């Protein structure tokens, strides 16, 4: 049996998007937490926890996009026009939010609030439209031949909009638990308070999506509830509940000690479970419900050429990215930075 390049590429793109959700998830979450922390000093601290790494975090989104173009050009050429407006709105939101990192510290006192608003608005809109795109993607994309056959507003439907809110909740929880890990004192206490309701909201969102998905799509219902799949998949909801219980307990702290890393790690676990659940539901389609990874694949000469480099370079990227996080490890104070 030969190596199935398309399966390997599906896994790599799954991984790239997952890294993006994890990493940019928490820094988008920080933008959505700004309204909960009106003090300038707190906001400076929050920004400084991610300022050295946000650019790398967003690069995973670019890898997801260009990887898709390289390995599955047909999927790229259908999904991107299919999700046209939500994606463009997300990109414009990322423009506002990305520049806020630099501009906020360069702005004069009286104009700083503008970039705070750009950061909040950009983070909210980017998260929401990512969720909408995800929801619309799971909802199915109309295809004829090798191109998108739906209308410009197909994404404006209940499920994608709910998914948009779900992703906002998930990112906010990631951001709050990240800050529990990276800050101290009053700000940390505030984040512990914020994280709790968002954890419960996320549990609610996961429940809604988990019930809605099989109801909407009989194929998914069949996959989830038929034997033996149900045996393999049963641990997923159980693990979700376990993570949630542990997360709430970790946030409460133990013996008067403040929570540190556990809440963030457990929140990552929750995101991983939800994300994997979705991937299992659509496998092996890359444009649900009609196009499989093999139908969308680029020729082996393209997939193979790109794979050689990816397998060598990706571990190196993970190494120096890890090193960069390590350099900036530990708690962050307000006036850190080069500004």
């Amino acid at each position, binding site marked *: 049996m030969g190596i199935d390049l398309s399966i390997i590429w599906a896994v790599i793109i799954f991984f790239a998007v997952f890294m993006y959700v994890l990493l940019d998830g928490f820094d988008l979450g920080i933008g959505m937490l700004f309204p909960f922390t009106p003090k300038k000093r707190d906001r400076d601290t929050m920004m400084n926890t991610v300022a050295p790494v946000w650019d790398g975090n*967003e690069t995973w989104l670019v*890898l997801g996009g260009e990887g898709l173009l390289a390995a599955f050009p047909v999927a790229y050429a259908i999904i991107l026009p299919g999700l046209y407006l939500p994606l463009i709105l997300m990109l414009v939101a990322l423009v506002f939010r990305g520049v806020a990192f630099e501009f906020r510290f360069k702005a004069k006192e009286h104009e700083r609030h503008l970039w705070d608003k750009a950061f909040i608005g950009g983070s909210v809109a980017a998260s929401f439209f990512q969720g909408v795109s995800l929801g619309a993607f799971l909802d199915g994309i109309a295809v004829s031949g090798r191109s998108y056959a739906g209308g410009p507003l197909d994404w404006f439907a209940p499920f994608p909009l709910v998914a948009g809110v779900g992703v906002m909740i998930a990112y906010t929880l990631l951001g709050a638990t990240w800050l529990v890990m990276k800050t101290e004192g009053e700000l940390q206490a505030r984040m512990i308070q914020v994280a709790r309701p968002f954890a419960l909201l996320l549990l609610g969102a996961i429940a809604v999506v988990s019930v809605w998905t099989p109801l909407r799509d009989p194929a998914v219902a069949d996959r989830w509830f038929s034997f033996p799949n149900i045996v393999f998949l049963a641990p997923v909801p159980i693990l979700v509940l376990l993570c949630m219980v542990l997360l709430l307990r970790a946030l409460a702290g133990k013996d008067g000690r403040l929570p540190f890393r556990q809440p963030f790690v457990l929140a990552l676990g929750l995101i991983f479970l939800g994300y994997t659940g979705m991937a299992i539901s659509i496998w092996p389609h890359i444009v649900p419900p009609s196009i499989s990874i093999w139908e969308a694949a680029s020729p082996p000469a393209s997939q193979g050429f790109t794979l050689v480099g990816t397998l060598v370079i990706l571990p190196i990227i993970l190494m120096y990215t890890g090193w960069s996080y390590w350099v900036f490890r530990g708690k962050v104070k307000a006036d850190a930075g*080069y500004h």
Partner: protein
Amino acid sequence: MFGFTALDLARIQFAFTMSFHILFPAITIGMASYLAVLELCWLRTGRQVFVDLYHFWLKIFAVTFGMGVVSGIVMAYQIGTNWSYLSEFAGSVMGPLLAYEVLTAFFLEAGFLGVMLFGWNRVGRELHFVATCMVAIGTLISSTWILGANSWMQTPQGYAIEGGRMVPVDWLAIIFNPSFPYRLVHMVIAAYLTTALLVGGSAAWHLLRGRDNPAVRKMMSMAMWMLLIVAPIQAVVGDFHGLNTLKHQPAKLAAMEGHWENRPGHAVPLLLFGIPDMEEERTKYAVGIPYLGSIILTHTLDGQVPALKDFAPEDRPNSLIVFWSFRLMVGLGLLMIALGAWSLFLRRGGRLFGHRLFLRFALWMGPAGLVAILAGWVTTEVGRQPWVVYGVLRTADAVSPHGAASLGLTLLLFVVAYLFVFGAGTAYVLRMIRKGPQHFELARAPEGGPGEERTPMRPLSAADVKNDEDGGAAGGADHHPPRS
């Protein structure tokens, strides 16, 4: 929408977002290398002036880089959202090149940028220098891949068409396509010139206001050496690039020259001025130098060059745009050479920092690199029309199936957002330049920050107060004594 077709709007949108985007990499490619040189000079000599300049330009670099990243993410997705048929048809060839750009360049830049910007007190000096170099190398690797992809679209080879799609046959032929080396060198040099002009223009601004200090002088001097050496090289590279275009994209060259037809036995003049008219098929008010077109392009007295009438009307690029954008680029290039030459002349007798007319010229030339780069890209991109993959896929066939309403709405969104965001960014950059290089406290005690200290902090003490000329790397009070 307003008489524009979906294709027009998609093209305007791409041209608009791309034109904004290219300005930022144009600055950061040159600036990253400049920063690496400054840090190396500091490590070698220990002179405070280099570290002051490093931290001054680092701030400007960071803002520009941030704008480049966010506008670049838009580009990464716009190929799919707006040009889906191109993605599907040519994605198997272009996709891997762009994926390699992300893997080998974007991650490298992003991974080390954090350390470069924020790691001054957290890693050792050598390691910090390595981070700066990695960012600089990242920008060059990025240029290599993106110019590879663009050049391949201009001069495609190494592919076959199977099942209505392009498939790669020979990756080396694809990457090292005929126009790639010229384009890559031309663009990287253009980025270096852009940085030299910005640095020189900033120094000139301060000198004109009487702010004469070692840091400003160093900026001026380094920028002018760069210009003196590199601007003439760029002219030679540009000439080679032109001959390459003559060979591989003859219609583009005919449009650049505003040259409509060859008459047997007649030499081709070099038109200096004229208004190419696509409807009347002639260049009005043409003013040219006889024989020079033949001499430059064919190195003979009566050589014939491609003419627009050799091509069907629907295969001709718009000569009016290309003719003038090309002349704008070349004209600015000649002014750059002049500025460099003048600076050399003024160095004798030390008049470089005080000659007001020269300083004003340098100030006005500050943005010339950016304008020339835009003009150059307009020349090459409009010049390849009506093809998106030259001779293989027409632009009109590459566009996504969106309605004009969707595209008009997103175009409006981009215009409003970009003018606001990048307008503010430009204002911040100018404000920082106006502030000028400040004294950077090397032994600054960190006021709390992420992570523990990795380098022992030197105590701030009076004994360390030295001026620039003594190599006061340890910091001090007065670092910019006026030099008489």
